[in-house]
């Protein structure tokens, strides 16, 4: 029996007035704890209170000698404070992880990003501000960076490291210590302008990004040059523009798949609550010329929900791109239910190859693989035609989290699959070019449910089905992450 349940039992007979504030447990937290025994995979979403320092991994197999550097990852890790638990996975405060690989050894450390929100709420001992899916409003919000959790991606660029969220500024971290250096303002007049968590870095080292402030109907466009300075900023008007999570960079264009949400004033002031699915409206592919940030065309497609795309390329006036597409937004809501330990509402996404004809204004799509997420391509393929697309895979059960990985051959349609199995929660896996330039390693983290441990595995990108070449296993469970990137030493 944990302390709080004991408290509740012992105090139940006393008059309510003697109960100290906060002695009653939170409903979401209670439900989560009650459901955990039946849904052990959700143990990956336990609250985390402190940084993880200096974890030396045990290596199984032989770590590739040429694979040296740091794999940065980011994900929400603080879900509870002052006995309250957030209502959505996306709400948690960001924790940035570094997996450092050197001399065949792997070490792990992870630090909370000391955002303004994290520092203020830590001092207060309770959540103060509205989050993505939970509407706390104990202190007024100044602007979007007041509620910036920096919890979605970790991107090294031009010698800097950024913890990214999608609704506000980038947060700069020290790449060696992971210490938080503060909000990044690219130019004074662009303070607090949203800088999404899914930038793309073209092979010339230029970082391309976008931002959306739902309600403003403006798509913000960023080019950060290879030296880390602001190259160009632009804004394009797009009517009825809701949250957009990711985009595709081709050699000529930036392509945004805009799901059909209507925006409403939310009673709880949460971001999610203001988004109402409208399947009667089309999904829109918004195509922007990357050279001058002008709007090239908006192409309508059947309604669908997309979080992630791996890559896209141009073929004359045609764009081809992949996307992980679900029928509607039920998974987005389901990723709230899991915080209560309810795993039964998750819906699968499929990987599609979408073809946009810019002259005709038409779109068509074909399925490449079912039950997939987290598409990634090798950084050398970014914006160019990619032969391989790497994804995580699952089975059709509604249980939380993915269970395998695959590469999809974009020309033959062949799948090369490795199944971790039901005892693993598989996170995003990313291709890293091998030293010498031929082929890729596929690098990814997974949570071992039975052992309650986190492990980093490396596969030969051409032979996933053969299983990992090596695995670096931590003696503890690290919080799940969303996205990350590798910085070669």
């Amino acid at each position, binding site marked *: 029996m944990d302390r709080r349940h004991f408290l509740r039992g012992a105090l139940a007979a006393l008059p309510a007035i003697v109960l100290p504030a906060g002695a009653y447990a939170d409903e979401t937290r209670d439900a989560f704890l009650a459901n955990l025994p039946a849904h052990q995979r959700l143990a990956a979403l336990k609250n985390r209170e402190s940084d993880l320092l200096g974890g030396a991994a045990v290596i199984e197999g032989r770590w590739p000698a040429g694979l040296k550097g740091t794999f940065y990852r980011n994900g929400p890790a603080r879900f509870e404070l002052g006995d309250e638990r957030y209502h959505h996975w996306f709400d948690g405060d960001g924790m940035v992880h570094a997996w450092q690989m050197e001399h065949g050894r792997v070490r792990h450390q992870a630090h909370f990003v000391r955002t303004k929100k994290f520092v203020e709420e830590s001092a207060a001992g309770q959540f103060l501000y509205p989050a993505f899916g939970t509407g706390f409003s104990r*202190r*007024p919000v*100044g602007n979007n960076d007041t509620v910036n959790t920096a919890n979605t991606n970790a991107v090294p660029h031009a010698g800097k490291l950024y913890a990214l969220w999608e609704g506000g500024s980038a947060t700069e971290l020290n790449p060696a210590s992971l210490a938080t250096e503060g909000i990044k303002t690219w130019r004074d*007049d662009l*303070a*607090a302008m949203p800088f999404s968590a899914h930038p793309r870095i073209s092979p010339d080292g230029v970082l391309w990004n976008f931002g959306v*402030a739902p309600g403003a109907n403006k798509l913000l466009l960023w080019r950060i040059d290879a030296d880390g300075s602001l190259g160009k900023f632009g804004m394009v008007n797009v009517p009825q523009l809701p949250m957009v999570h990711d985009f595709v960079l081709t050699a000529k264009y930036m392509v945004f798949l805009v799901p059909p949400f209507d925006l409403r004033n939310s009673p709880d*002031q949460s971001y999610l609550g203001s988004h109402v699915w409208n399947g009667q409206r089309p999904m829109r592919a918004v195509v922007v010329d990357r050279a001058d940030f002008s709007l090239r065309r908006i192409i309508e497609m059947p309604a669908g929900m997309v979080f992630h795309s791996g890559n896209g390329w141009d073929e004359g006036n045609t764009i081809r791109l992949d996307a992980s597409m679900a029928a509607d937004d039920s998974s987005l809501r389901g990723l709230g239910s899991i915080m209560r330990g309810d795993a039964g509402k998750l819906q699968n996404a499929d990987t599609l190859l979408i073809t946009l004809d810019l002259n005709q204004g038409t779109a068509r799509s074909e399925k490449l693989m079912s039950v997939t997420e987290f598409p990634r391509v090798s950084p050398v393929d970014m914006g160019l035609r990619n032969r391989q697309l790497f994804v995580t895979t699952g089975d059709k059960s509604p249980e939380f989290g993915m269970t395998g990985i695959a590469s999809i051959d974009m020309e033959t349609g062949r799948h090369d699959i490795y199944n971790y199995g039901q005892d693993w929660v598989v996170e995003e896996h990313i291709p890293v070019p091998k030293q010498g330039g031929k082929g890729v390693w596929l690098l990814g983290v997974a949570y071992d449910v039975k052992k309650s441990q986190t492990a980093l595995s490396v596969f030969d990108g051409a032979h996933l089905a053969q299983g990992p070449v090596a695995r670096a296993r931590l003696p503890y469970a690290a919080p799940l992450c969303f996205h990350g990137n590798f910085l070669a030493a």
Partner: protein
Amino acid sequence: MKHYFPSIIFAALAMASVTGMAQAAELTVEVTGLKSAKGKVMVAVYDKSENFMKQPYKVAAVDAQADKVKLMIAGLPAGDYALSVFQDENSNGKLDSNPLGMPVEPYGFSNDAAGNYGPPSFAQALVQVPDAGKLISIKLR
């Protein structure tokens, strides 16, 4: 997206006198949560809902200091008022906002009132000032 402050009013503020006639109530405004001593703290007092965020009844300013500052607004007839405050860190006379209209300098309202994706209403920020005067506190965000 609504804008938070009518910048033109503060641009005209310059160095308004913060002390006035002693015939009416005195409102003391403590502004907390300053993270720097840069620039000035600017206060606007509104006496009518229809003028809120448009036409202040009185304005005041004081040099910023770390942590908090205090201003005295004298000569207010007893009654209902709403206040808006900001720290003009770069001394350009207005609350700076980014191209989406989001404020990027610290600001606040009486009652620490909060709006939903915009400024609060006059009623949300309303304070009653009696003849004996009043002390209020506003936290910058």
